[in-house]
């Protein structure tokens, strides 16, 4: 039982990371009907921005404050990166066929991965320790301070996001845009602005996830975004792409099942489980757990 609870905590911690990334996929899909394949790479850039900011802070005592500062800078930089990706790559082809947009997204992903190898170097870098480390023992379980940070920060960001989407004027406009781009324009909503905000938010969340995972692992490399990006994508599809609560649920489920499979079966199946789930979802419930079936209009 204790082992199970321990695995559950580990799973929820990993799942929070997937959930943060999955939110970006689902929000962008909501406004543009686009799978932003470059999203995992934004997460990687977030980790690198965190790395360079941390190096600047080196020599200072590790503290929660500097960890938060690192995360904040990474979120802002990646928010801007997200806006640039949309402006420069997606906006010019937005009116073209859906396939054009999808191929563009794959192109952006490859571009960022290769640019990162050029700029950051292809070899892995070790992420410096930001916050004081401690282990907590509770009911036979061991909770690391990193795990607690991951879960606490994720919950905080998700609560803030939920408030933003449900209560603010811009958040309501985001929901309006995700329902119908044309109808939103007819309300006087600048849909370009809302799309920029969506990319900024999604990318900032991915950057937070990048810093959180880098604090835990703590090794980063230019291709680290691929597995996380893919699994978060699966999480978004499992939860129902376009659904914000779905992305969180999907992320937690994928993270938990991955940890459980590694814990109880074999680490060989670590990556197989996510894609196994993807296949099952696509066969049994293509709209995802919390997704709505899109009715085709006649």
């Amino acid at each position: 039982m204790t082992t199970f609870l321990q695995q559950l905590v580990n799973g929820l911690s990993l799942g929070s990371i997937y959930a943060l990334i999955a939110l970006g996929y689902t929000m962008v899909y909501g406004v543009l009907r686009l799978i932003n394949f470059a999203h995992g790479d934004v997460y990687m850039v977030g980790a690198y921005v965190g790395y360079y900011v941390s190096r600047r802070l080196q020599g200072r005592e590790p503290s929660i404050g500097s960890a938060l500062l690192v995360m904040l800078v990474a979120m802002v930089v990646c928010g801007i990166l997200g806006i640039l990706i949309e402006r420069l790559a997606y906006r010019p082809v937005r009116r073209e066929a859906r396939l054009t947009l999808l191929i563009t997204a794959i192109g952006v992903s490859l571009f960022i991965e290769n640019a990162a190898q050029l700029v950051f170097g292809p070899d892995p870098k070790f992420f410096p320790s930001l916050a004081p480390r401690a282990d907590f023992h509770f009911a036979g379980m061991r909770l690391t301070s990193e795990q607690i940070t991951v879960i606490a920060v994720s919950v905080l960001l998700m609560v803030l996001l939920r408030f933003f989407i449900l209560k603010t004027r811009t958040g309501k406009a985001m929901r309006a845009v995700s329902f119908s781009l044309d109808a939103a324009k007819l309300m006087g909503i600048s849909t370009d602005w809302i799309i920029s905000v969506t990319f900024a938010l999604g990318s900032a969340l991915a950057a937070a996830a990048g810093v959180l995972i880098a604090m835990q692992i703590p090794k980063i490399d230019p291709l680290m975004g691929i597995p996380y990006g893919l699994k978060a994508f699966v999480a978004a599809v499992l939860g129902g792409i376009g659904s914000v609560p779905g992305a969180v649920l999907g992320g937690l489920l994928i993270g938990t099942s991955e940890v459980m499979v590694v814990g109880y079966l074999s680490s060989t199946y670590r990556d197989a489980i996510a894609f196994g789930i993807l296949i099952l979802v696509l066969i049994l419930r293509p709209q995802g757990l919390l997704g709505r079936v899109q009715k085709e209009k006649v």
Partner: protein
Amino acid sequence: MSAILEVRDLSVSYGAIVALKGVSLSLAEGEIVTLIGANGAGKTTTLRAIMGLVRTAGGEVLYRGAPTRSSKTHQLVRDGLVLVPEGRIVFANLSVQENLEMGAYARRDGGVAADLDRVCALFPRLKERRRQTAGTLSGGEQQMLAIGRAMMSGPKVLLLDEPSLGLAPIVVHAIFEAIREIHRSGVPVLLVEQNANAALRHSDRAYVLETGRVALEGPSAEVAANPKVKEAYLGE
């Protein structure tokens, strides 16, 4: 009377399909003008082109005397050119209240609260249901919401695309009453309808659109009396 909205020789193509072949029409202050025609005649395309939602191949649209070519849809709305789209397209995932808020999204003036009262007075049903998600409303209520939402935008010109489509006669009556009420408050209305009977009864002037061209225009009473119109659109 000078036209507040003028469409000159407007052409629109969807790929190889030519939807509009040089449509000209105008709307002056104080008028209700209707645009009738069969399915596929280009009525919806005309409205979408006026709003900048489809690319035009030729011609121009003048709103308050100025060409709209360089304005984006949301800027036209902010300037008071407002469309209630075909099929209503209320935000089904938002509450009734939030839909109305979205109508006033771009407004900076202080008239929003007064307009909300007007909408609630005109459509008491919306007030009762303001917390419900718009997707749970009936078709008639959704149309009321779509019109109420447009009223919240503070329109200086209101375009309506098939507001009576698929509604029960009693609801159609209520919708037309509401349109008259908006018109009485000083907003000129351009009304696209398949329900030619009701549209001609409630308008000052009419244009008949046939396969992307204006086939006939004139005061609504005259258009209604035209034998061809009677046969083709009024079912007499």
